[in-house]
């Protein structure tokens, strides 16, 4: 059994990763209550069942994977499958978004789960396709396909500089 963490260490890790894990869990379950449950479980798992991490990056990837798995497990439950409550969420969650941004958020949340999480890890967190494949336990090519589909569904047009940066991240240049 893992030793109890110091309050200081817990606070450091919690503060560092809470937003990242919030984004991931919320992207899957799309509601406040379930996101809370998943984050509680993810951090509790970190407290009691985390292995010895070799680096902060290792710890971060482990937490991402645990959160993804908890979110997927949650969605598998029969009564959660169709529980999507996106209406008025930006307001109830105190996000200061314009009407245009709320519409964009709707589009992002309407993406298939696989596309949405791959896009988030790539375009927001900056992970390469290889790294995402390791985190999500899928192939690198599957990640590339999901990004391609996600861009198409969002009609995301990247300027040349952005395309080069993305190719670099994907390991394609």
């Amino acid at each position, binding site marked *: *059994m893992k030793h*109890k963490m110091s309050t200081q260490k817990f606070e450091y890790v919690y503060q560092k990763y*809470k*937003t990242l894990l919030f*984004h991931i869990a*919320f992207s899957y379950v799309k509601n*406040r209550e379930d*996101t*809370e*449950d998943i*984050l*509680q479980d993810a*951090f*509790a798992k970190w*407290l009691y*069942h985390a*292995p*010895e*991490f*070799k680096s902060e*990056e*290792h710890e971060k*990837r*482990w937490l991402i994977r*645990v959160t993804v798995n908890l979110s*997927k497990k949650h969605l598998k439950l029969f009564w959660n499958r169709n529980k999507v409550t996106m209406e008025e969420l930006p307001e109830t*969650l*105190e*996000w200061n*978004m314009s009407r245009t*941004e709320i519409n*964009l*958020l709707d589009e*992002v949340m309407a993406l*298939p*789960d*696989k*596309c949405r999480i791959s*896009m*988030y890890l790539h*375009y*927001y967190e900056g992970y390469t396709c290889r790294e995402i494949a*390791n985190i*999500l*336990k*899928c*192939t*690198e*090519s*599957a*990640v590339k*396909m999901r990004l391609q*589909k996600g861009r198409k569904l969002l*009609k*995301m*047009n990247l*300027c040349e500089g952005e395309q080069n940066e993305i*190719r670099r991240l994907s*390991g*394609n240049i």
Partner: protein
Amino acid sequence: MKLEDYQEIYKKMEMPKKMDERIREGIMEKENGKRKEVNKKTLVQTACAVAAAIMVVGVLQAPSIATASRQLAEQFTNKFTAYTEDGEDVDIEMKGEYLKINANAKKTNCKMDSLKTAEKELGLPLLKSKDAYEEKNCIAYNALLSESGELYQVELIDDFYVLGDIKDVNTEMFSQPDDVNDIRFHEGKEYRSPICMEIVVRLNSNEDVEHPEYDGVTADFSEDKDVNVYEIKNLGVKAVLSTVETAGVWWDYDLNTVMRSCAYAVFVYKGIEYRYMGAVSQDTMKTFLEGLAE
């Protein structure tokens, strides 16, 4: 949608304060509950110590690098830690090597027609299966360059390396390195998907240049099921086998593809890391592994 608009949305998606407080409270409650649970469990463990010690429920690959000055090292250690239900660690180590390859090996991504072509390119022998499905452009050759433009890693990827008994196979192969090859098929009895292959060759250099930091973590088994260590008799090396729930083994054009149970194997042979995954049983994966040879 512009990339910056996409990123801006997530920047604004902050965790509400009340949620933050409730999560902390929830974790503290779990912590208190867990303490009681631990005490209770200790008593049970005394009676079941022998049984629990051999029950491997998870494996974590926690590699450590042999030396801090990475570019001068020739070897590194991938340490796979299997942990038991009562938290006992069982270590399995695999020696990886920073290898020398042909000086004129390609520094750009491309597609290749077989592993034999890749062997010639790299000047290294690679493990191959006699059952491999080979077609023009079937292998993606990924060349990873450091910021100074030096080649530090080569990856060879074939997403349908062995087809087994899958039926009605229809492939579309692309020559451009960015284009992912496509396959359509119907499941077989033994192979519910092809077995895909990833080979990772990490390279040595005499030049005193900065390589991107390799933390050695290439796969994390801590959430996998049915984790086993299997000795590949034909090669004389140990592989870690696990069962992964995934939908991302083949080209899932249908994004709602159901999750499947896949066998995943990773091992190091002569310093090169080999990974295989497919919707097959672990026994089928073992048979496949035994058929690998240079």
